[in-house]
């Protein structure tokens, strides 16, 4: 499986990526790119969203060229099928984020009940803030009791008894009225997902417009529900992120240290691993085994969670997960859930790496399953770190390749609170900078990696273009890691920004691209946007903001994009979503939503052109505001 140099070049813009892609090929590994190539050509019906497997009268397909069948067996036409498929993608994405949130709420309750040794309330301030938002009385309650009460109130958010989610209160008044008018105010997190699965069952909602509207509601139940709970409770349990310096790329894996890599999305497990890795006894053991310490490194969003709060270095983003294994340096990889390629277990068998799955709901081939619960987390984490240390000696020298050079420096930890504090305690200076034009606008560049797009190229090209035009970029998830690898996340990167933004960055000592967390943390961006809108007494959609997901792949990204647009943020997608089989739906999503929500979607695979679309948008919004 030898690779041509031009293949490697075409696959990624990252240097470490290229080196280890070749290494992986030499080691006989099959990577995500190989599998993508083997899948070519991919099914055009599915690419267009025109295939339906919802029931066993099917599967059905609609001929996009009009000659073949125009209806499925049940009679659903292209519009209905595309809408149903999109609806189910949203439901899956929303369910993923929300289930992640629920797991954290469970830990919060256990902490309050004293059944989660090792866990605690790191941010009492946030706990109290949430309590007041949720209408939980703090009077005379201990922190533990309050934690239980807040957890209970949050559990209610998942249910079916509400007219609106509690956190809808954070949304500007104007926006809330828009949602009410369209009937898309989210009511219960699980309810909306469950209702979507119901509506998309054969013979339920067959009006593509109302299906899509419910899709927006389902997405809002994620953005202002599930994801938001995940972020806020993580902050309560593990602390509100503060600016922190760290490093990124495969070179953060150290040949002379025990390397434990944390992959997935939920910080519950990895926070315990982090604690265990600080244990002097285990550090001693590591030295005993000839290692100079225990090195924790992150992949994907579990990595981002720990980076944001603990400053651990990042080995890479989604497409780097297999290549990280090919260093031969990882003594243990712990995974929780989401975006963990099922291939990883088998890939790791080529090396000494121990693969451990930790979640009761996520098991993988060729991985050891060591289930974490709040009750056993601390002890199990210690056991696992010990085992990782013991595995250090089993490295296979012939298969080890130490990444040459040094890692790239980065800054992370820009929670809303951290940004406000960096601004001197209020959003005022940011508003002023926007008003003055020093900062033209702000864009959230988020999302995954996708082998359909040259690795990191979409993110880095788009973001570079934006900051050059004095647009502040905030990011999360795999996009954030891509930017960090490209060196855009150090204060010195201000030099790459346009003059206005450069000046602001220099003045505040911040990079032009601010890392706001993992992909559930996208809600931080909307929190900030809502705060700005409040401050200006206007709606989110009136602000010079936009969002972009240049390399998205997952169903979660679909949910995010939908709650972004529903929240009033113009969103540009790099990978075409499977909607192009219905011109009605394309028109609705890319044009008609503008009139309903003040925001819409655009699809633009070329990141440079995507940047132009965004800049044009920002200019228009600024003009509308009279700036």
């Amino acid at each position, binding site marked *: 499986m030898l690779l041509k140099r031009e293949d490697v070049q075409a696959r990624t813009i990252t240097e470490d990526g290229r080196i280890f892609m070749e290494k992986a090929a030499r080691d006989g590994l099959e990577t995500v790119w190989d599998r993508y190539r083997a*899948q070519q*050509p991919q*099914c*055009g*019906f599915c*690419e*267009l969203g025109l295939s339906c497997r919802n029931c066993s009268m099917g599967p059905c*397909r609609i001929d*996009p*060229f*009009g*000659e*073949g069948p125009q209806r499925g067996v049940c009679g659903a036409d292209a519009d209905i099928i595309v809408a149903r498929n999109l609806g189910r993608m949203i439901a899956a994405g929303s369910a993923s984020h929300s289930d992640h949130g629920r797991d954290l709420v469970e830990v919060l309750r256990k902490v309050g009940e004293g059944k989660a040794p090792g866990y605690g309330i790191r941010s009492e301030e946030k706990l109290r803030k949430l309590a007041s938002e949720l209408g939980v009385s703090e009077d005379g309650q201990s922190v533990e009791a309050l934690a239980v009460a807040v957890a209970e109130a949050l559990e209610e958010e998942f249910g079916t008894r509400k007219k609106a989610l509690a956190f809808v209160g954070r949304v500007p008044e104007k926006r809330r009225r828009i949602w009410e008018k369209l009937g898309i105010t989210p009511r219960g997190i699980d309810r909306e997902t469950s209702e979507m699965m119901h509506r998309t069952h054969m013979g339920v909602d067959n009006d593509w417009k109302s299906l899509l509207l419910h899709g927006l509601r389902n997405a809002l139940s994620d953005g202002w529900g599930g994801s938001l709970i995940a972020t806020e409770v993580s902050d309560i349990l593990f602390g509100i992120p503060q600016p922190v310096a760290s490093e990124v790329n495969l070179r953060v894996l150290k040949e002379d240290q025990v390397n434990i890599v944390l992959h997935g999305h939920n910080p519950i497990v990895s926070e315990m691993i982090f604690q265990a890795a600080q244990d002097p006894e285990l550090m001693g053991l590591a030295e005993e085994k000839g290692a100079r310490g225990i090195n924790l490194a992150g992949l994907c969003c579990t990595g981002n969670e720990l980076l944001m709060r603990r400053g651990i270095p990042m080995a890479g983003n989604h497409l780097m997960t297999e290549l990280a294994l090919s260093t031969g340096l990882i003594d243990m990889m712990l995974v929780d859930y989401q975006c963990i390629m099922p291939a990883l277990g088998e890939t790791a068998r080529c090396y000494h790496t121990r693969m451990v799955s930790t979640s009761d709901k996520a098991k993988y081939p060729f991985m050891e399953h060591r289930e974490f619960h709040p009750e056993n987390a601390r002890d199990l984490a210690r056991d696992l770190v010990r085992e990782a240390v013991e595995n250090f000696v089993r490295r296979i020298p012939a298969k080890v390749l130490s990444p040459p050079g040094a890692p790239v420096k980065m800054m992370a930890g820009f929670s809303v609170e951290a940004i406000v504090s960096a601004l001197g305690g209020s959003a005022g200076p940011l508003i002023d900078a926007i008003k003055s034009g020093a900062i033209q606008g702000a864009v959230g560049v988020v999302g995954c990696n996708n082998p359909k797009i040259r690795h990191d190229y979409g993110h880095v090209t788009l973001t570079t273009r934006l900051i050059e035009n004095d647009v502040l970029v905030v990011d999360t998830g795999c996009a954030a890691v891509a930017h960090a690898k490209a060196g855009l996340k150090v204060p010195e990167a201000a030099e790459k920004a346009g003059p206005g933004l450069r000046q602001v960055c220099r003045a505040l000592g911040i990079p032009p691209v601010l890392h706001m967390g993992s992909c559930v943390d996208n809600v931080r961006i909307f929190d900030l946007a809502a705060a700005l809108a409040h401050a200006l007494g206007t709606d989110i959609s009136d602000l010079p903001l936009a969002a972009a997901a240049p390399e998205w792949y997952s169903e979660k990204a679909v949910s995010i994009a939908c709650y972004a647009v529903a929240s009033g943020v113009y969103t540009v997608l790099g990978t*075409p979503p499977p909607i*192009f*089989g219905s*011109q009605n739906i394309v028109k609705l999503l890319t044009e008609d939503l503008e009139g309903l929500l003040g925001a819409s979607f655009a699809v633009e695979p070329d990141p440079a052109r995507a940047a132009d679309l965004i800049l044009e948008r920002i200019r228009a919004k600024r003009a509308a505001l009279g700036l």
Partner: protein
Amino acid sequence: MERILVRWERCVGCRSCELACRVAHSASGDLFSAVLERPAPSRRIYVEQADKTPSPFLCRQCEDAPCVRSCPTRALAHDETTGLVAYEPARCIGCHGCVMACPFGMIQPDVREGFIAKCDRCKGRDRPACVEACPTHTLVLEKDFLDLRRKEAVRNLVQSGNPV
């Protein structure tokens, strides 16, 4: 030119070949744009449920072709060099005789280039779009077909437990 042969037993009816054929014969050459073209680009390969199994059918480029014989203007003619039944739109009067004559149903009336749509084995392409698009390698070029058949035959022989 190498013929396109069909390993019928492998077809799963995904219709990828049909889509690829249309895209290859569209103005833009790209799926997402091709679906917007009007008139819609036509296909020249047909996946049909024949005798309970899905199978792709395409022009067999007959040597003594009924469509050629039915053509009053020689718009269809057997091309000696390529071995294809070639269609010359400029000569076509659109009488549909070939559509009726083809016993396999491989010619359809069309409105884009000329008045019929018939497999041209993807002019200017090394490998026809359908062959490239086929995920199960049901559609293969003649040499590959024979090569694969031989390999299959040998594998079956070996697996039969009676190696040579």
